[in-house]
């Protein structure tokens, strides 16, 4: 057992930090979910360092990884610098293509992903299919040499700037639920696609997501990822990667410490909440221990990920991280009292309304990439071996 970074890992990390100090500009900071030119330029610089394809085979544009934790170290540092992390493109899409995609998909798309050529949108949810993804109705009909896609998706965050949709569709009316889904790659400029914006709740920094409509959209058969009708199983595995890749504990640390430092400094009519108010002080201390537990679950997840897909551990990491986002913002709001409700624009708003905005987004964090309760269901089923709640009563079914 060893919780220390090796010399190689430390050296890599210093290299990353030096790079970020040079290249993370004010325009890059916070460009998490927006496709600004500054962000694209920044990610391309990382691509040029060979950092996006670490650990992937060289024939697909990958670069040798100095350590199994390279991607993690990179993301932690990116997150500390408040720069966009390496997320779904590598974590979900490239990994799935590598594991199940055809040779031509690998040769086509992996080098593009590693060179940051083009953007992707995960295209899963539908109005009737949220947590229950097996319930989608967007259908891809077999037309011989191509599929014809009809239907509607929503909560497609990158739709308004993506080049490709990484999309799950129904491909059989006969096969049973979950065995009738396929993963496909759809060009965003295909005729028949239209999008409409949806805005997350918020006041000043409201994030945009989208509805996407598919009307007789042609997709060549070569864009089917892996086997037809196996999509659900590929996705389940990919979602494990995503929980790990997207919800890094670093962002919860950063939020917690930003709020902690604010409360240490701020003066409320002569009172500093964390030095002069014993209740806030001890609540903040308790939260610190819980945030630390998130770091531990992530370390655990990381160690597992060096060897296999960290399915249960990824669910724990995701669930705990989302809970910490929520707990951090809720506690901060409670400490602020009525001032917690003030939005940007008020001279009395804490951190220019940051805490309030983050509080509103925390609920979203509990839902994204499979909700907290979905994660707990996965833990109950896969780790504890408890029976499926959705199945008929076990004894009657026998």
């Amino acid at each position: 057992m060893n919780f220390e970074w090796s010399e190689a890992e430390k050296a890599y990390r210093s290299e990353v930090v030096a790079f970020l100090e040079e290249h993370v500009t004010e325009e890059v900071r916070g460009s998490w979910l927006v496709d600004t030119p500054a962000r694209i330029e920044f990610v391309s610089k990382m691509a040029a360092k060979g950092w996006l394809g670490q650990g992937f085979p060289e024939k697909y544009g990958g670069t040798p990884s100095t350590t199994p934790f390279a991607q993690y170290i990179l993301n932690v540092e990116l997150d500390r610098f408040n720069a966009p992390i390496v997320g779904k493109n590598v974590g979900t899409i490239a990994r799935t293509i590598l594991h199940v995609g055809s040779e031509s998909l690998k040769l086509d798309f992996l080098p593009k992903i590693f060179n940051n050529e083009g953007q992707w949108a995960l295209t899963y949810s539908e109005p009737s299919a949220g947590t229950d993804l097996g319930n989608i109705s967007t259908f891809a009909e077999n037309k011989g040499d191509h599929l014809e896609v009809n239907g509607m998706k929503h909560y497609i965050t990158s739709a308004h700037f993506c080049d490709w949709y990484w999309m799950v569709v129904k491909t059989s009316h006969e096969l049973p639920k979950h065995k009738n889904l396929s993963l496909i790659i759809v060009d965003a400029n295909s005729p028949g696609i239209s999008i409409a914006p949806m805005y997350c709740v918020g006041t000043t920094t409201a994030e945009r997501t989208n509805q996407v409509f598919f009307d007789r959209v042609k997709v060549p058969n070569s864009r089917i990822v892996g086997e037809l009708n196996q999509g659900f199983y590929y996705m389940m595995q990919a979602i494990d990667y995503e929980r790990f890749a997207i919800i890094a504990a670093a962002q919860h640390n950063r939020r917690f410490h930003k709020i902690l430092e604010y409360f240490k400094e701020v003066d409320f009519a002569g009172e500093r909440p964390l030095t002069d108010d014993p209740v806030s002080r001890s609540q903040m201390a308790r939260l610190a221990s819980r945030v630390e537990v998130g770091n531990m679950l992530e370390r655990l997840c990381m160690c597992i990920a060096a060897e296999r897909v960290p399915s249960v551990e990824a669910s724990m990491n995701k669930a705990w991280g989302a809970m910490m986002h929520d707990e951090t913002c809720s506690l901060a709001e409670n400490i602020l009292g009525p001032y917690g409700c003030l939005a940007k624009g008020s001279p009395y708003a804490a951190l220019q309304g940051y805490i309030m905005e983050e509080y509103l987004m925390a609920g979203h964090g509990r839902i994204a990439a499979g909700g907290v309760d979905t994660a707990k269901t996965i833990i109950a089923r896969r780790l504890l071996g408890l029976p499926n709640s959705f199945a008929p009563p076990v004894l009657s079914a026998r």
Partner: protein
Amino acid sequence: MDIKLSEDQNLLQDTAARFMQRECGFEFLRDIENNSNTGFCPHMWRSFAEMGWLGINLPEEYGGMGMTMVDNVILLRELGRKICPSPLLHTVVTAGESISRCGTEVQKRELLPSIVAGTSVYAFAFQELSRFFHPSHIRCEAKVEGDAYVISGRKMFVEFADRADTLLVVARTGGPAINRKDSSGLTMFLVDRHSVGVTCELMPTMSRDRQYEVVFDNVRVPESCILGNVDRAWADLEPAIQKTAIALCAYTNGAGFEMHARATQYAKDRVQFDRPIGQMMTIQMYLAQSIMELYGADTLTLFTASNMDQGLNVRGYVGKMKAFCAETVCRNMDTGSQIFGGMGYMEDHDTTLYLRRGKQLELMLGGTEYWLEVIAEEIIDRQPVNLS
């Protein structure tokens, strides 16, 4: 970085698990609770010594095994699974560590080998008539009288005091505390339990262990009983308490894991509404939340131990670990008992042994209020933390 156990650590874990499985069943536990005068089994204590467990972290030059704190966590987790009663924690960890840390060469040579051999048991006389654990609340006084010290005062929650050979007494030598953060003016004494003026009275507890109220009525001890520096005990005692906290958390994590496993098995076996109750989402949410907390508590304990092994400052981590593990073990016992339904609250149901220990384990060695203040001092009063 990896979390795999070494071959030796696997062996330690397996040996401990097998021993506990064989020797520490519910009948044994109830027998100790109801019929034992000592609160632990002297025969089992000898076995601990034979397996080298009583010297686990003590230096090899004094007969110990010189193993790491991570090894200690692995061992204590197995003891905790079976809620094994023994004076290991304060004998081997609190006293053993204090003696190794600040004892004179003579003290080390004389005292450590007898700890390793299992021939002397120590009790930790620290907490007093105060809800608070912070050393500023210590009022028990040791006054110089010629070439001796005379100790007067009252210590509470002195586990296994009646059976102990030696009491590790923390007493005030440097005048009263100036405020509630003052940890100065204290000295450690190694007091023979059978000294004139020492009386012990059993304090009946929720977990039916052996906690004593110990009164020191003008107890005369020679100067040679002083352990470490006069008036400056806290500098050596605090790290020993940190180590004890790590071992205690390993124990409580083990207890939590066992209760969780029992509740999970019951959820699979117990049928209501034609299905195992574990098929119901409410039960699944309880068990999933608890196991997540246990994984977090366990990893945080191992991480803290590992950092301590590297010689890093672990004060903040120990605070976070103790605060979180304490809450976790208690909640696990409560949640687990809920899953057993009414049976979970019947005196002769075995899991009530875990239920009765949950809250008590949470409150021992400093309640959460103490450890939260340790965290607060580290994260609020010190420089900003740059977490990586």
